[in-house]
């Protein structure tokens, strides 16, 4: 199978088009990733080459929406890295949420919704769901729509269940979803307390007073400039002492970042916003 390969000049032209036509600035996305995503669309939609892509995206707003959706990478599974979810279930959630009301948890890119539903299921099991408020942002309206419907690929049921069993000694996920052929649907009452926000790449409006940000394996698709910008937005959204959790091979490391955050759990990449 031979893939179409996008040149650097073509990639820059595409980035410029997206900026000029839709005011989305992708230049600080990680180049390898961005190229690969565009190549995939060019092949799957039979667009032949970069010009085909550019012409279609200028002509069709709907196609731009599909592109935005494809830039938001799905989480690989529910409860990815079960050891992190055990820390949340056994330490952070009971200790911090038990006596709170409106404990705000923010998902800056909700992607496939799996981080949101994973969080909601654990809180439901702990009987703490009523104490939290979720905020879920995404670049893509289609992503938000699918998350609101709770839709996911039934092929993932097995891996999701295996992870669940690494966190809970009893039961399985079946009480939380229904299957219809190749598709499955989460019980959307889990996320009825969620505010969805459509975002551009630059967060002009972001939530404040957040106690926990779950932002794992999304900033890996950015270069370091955008990583720093997003991390500072997370910092500004968080209350002092609030948590920021990133993917387990991500590191927060910009100039003076140790004045902003303390790494409190290296294994699970849990950072805490400093008090002042």
């Amino acid at each position: 199978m031979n893939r179409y390969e996008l040149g650097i000049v073509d990639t820059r032209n595409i980035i410029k088009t997206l900026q000029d036509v839709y005011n989305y600035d992708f230049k600080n996305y990680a180049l390898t990733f961005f190229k690969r995503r565009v190549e995939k669309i060019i092949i799957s939609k039979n667009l032949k080459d970069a010009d085909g892509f550019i012409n279609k995206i200028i002509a069709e707003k709907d196609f731009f929406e599909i592109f935005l959706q494809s830039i938001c990478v799905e989480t690989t599974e529910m409860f990815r890295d079960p050891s992190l979810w055990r820390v949340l279930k056994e330490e952070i959630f009971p200790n911090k949420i038990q006596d709170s009301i409106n404990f705000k948890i923010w998902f800056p890119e909700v992607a496939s919704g799996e981080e949101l539903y994973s969080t909601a299921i654990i809180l439901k099991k702990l009987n703490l769901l009523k104490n939290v408020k979720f905020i879920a942002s995404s670049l893509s309206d289609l992503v938000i729509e699918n998350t609101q419907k709770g839709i996911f690929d039934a092929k993932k049921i097995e891996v999701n269940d295996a992870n669940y069993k690494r966190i809970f000694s009893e039961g399985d996920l079946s009480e939380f979803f229904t299957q219809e052929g190749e598709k499955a649907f989460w019980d959307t009452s889990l996320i009825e307390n969620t505010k969805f926000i459509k975002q551009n790449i630059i967060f002009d409006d972001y939530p404040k007073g957040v106690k926990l940000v779950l932002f794992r394996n999304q900033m890996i698709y950015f270069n370091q400039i955008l990583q720093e910008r997003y991390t500072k937005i997370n910092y500004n959204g968080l209350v002092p002492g609030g948590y920021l959790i990133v993917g387990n091979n991500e590191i927060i490391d910009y100039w003076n970042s140790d004045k902003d955050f303390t790494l409190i759990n290296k294994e699970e990449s849990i950072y805490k916003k400093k008090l002042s």
Partner: protein
Amino acid sequence: MYKAVVIGGSAGSFQVITKILNSLPINFPLPVLLSLHRLKHVRSGFVEALSIKSSIPIVEPYDKENIKPGKGYLAPANYHMYIELNKRIALSTEEPVNHSRPSIDLTFETAAQAYRDKLIGIILSGANRDGANGLKKLKQAGGLAIVQDPNECQVKTMTEASLNLTSVDHIFTTEQIIKFLLNLK
């Protein structure tokens, strides 16, 4: 003249990999990029096992970590490992390729884009076709393609798939691979 070595294999090639890594001197002049199939939910243990007798440090890199000579970079569990044009690691959780994440193809392909003809690619024993396309891209970009001698491999699928797709520069036994690497300057 070479700037990096990229190695692909599966968990079954663990012994060959450790043999190669253990024979490299501490001042080995190139970075070693390792994309090896592994269990996705077992995060720890692998890099530690590879490090035990290796003179060069082996790490599971952080996203956007700078690639340095004399150091081994192992693709972390359940991530693809890309090489950016600016010689940094980029991790990805995109869909598996050839049922694999990490995918050897993707590491080889992106390394070939970053290092062009300054790259050495080595495919070791493994149980699926992953790596064959990546090695082809590497060769097309001017890199040097090496495949482990299939006669030496318990599972030949990966090496034979690579040999079918690319006319490689060398078919080497483990000992020959080591000798070749030790002669690099």
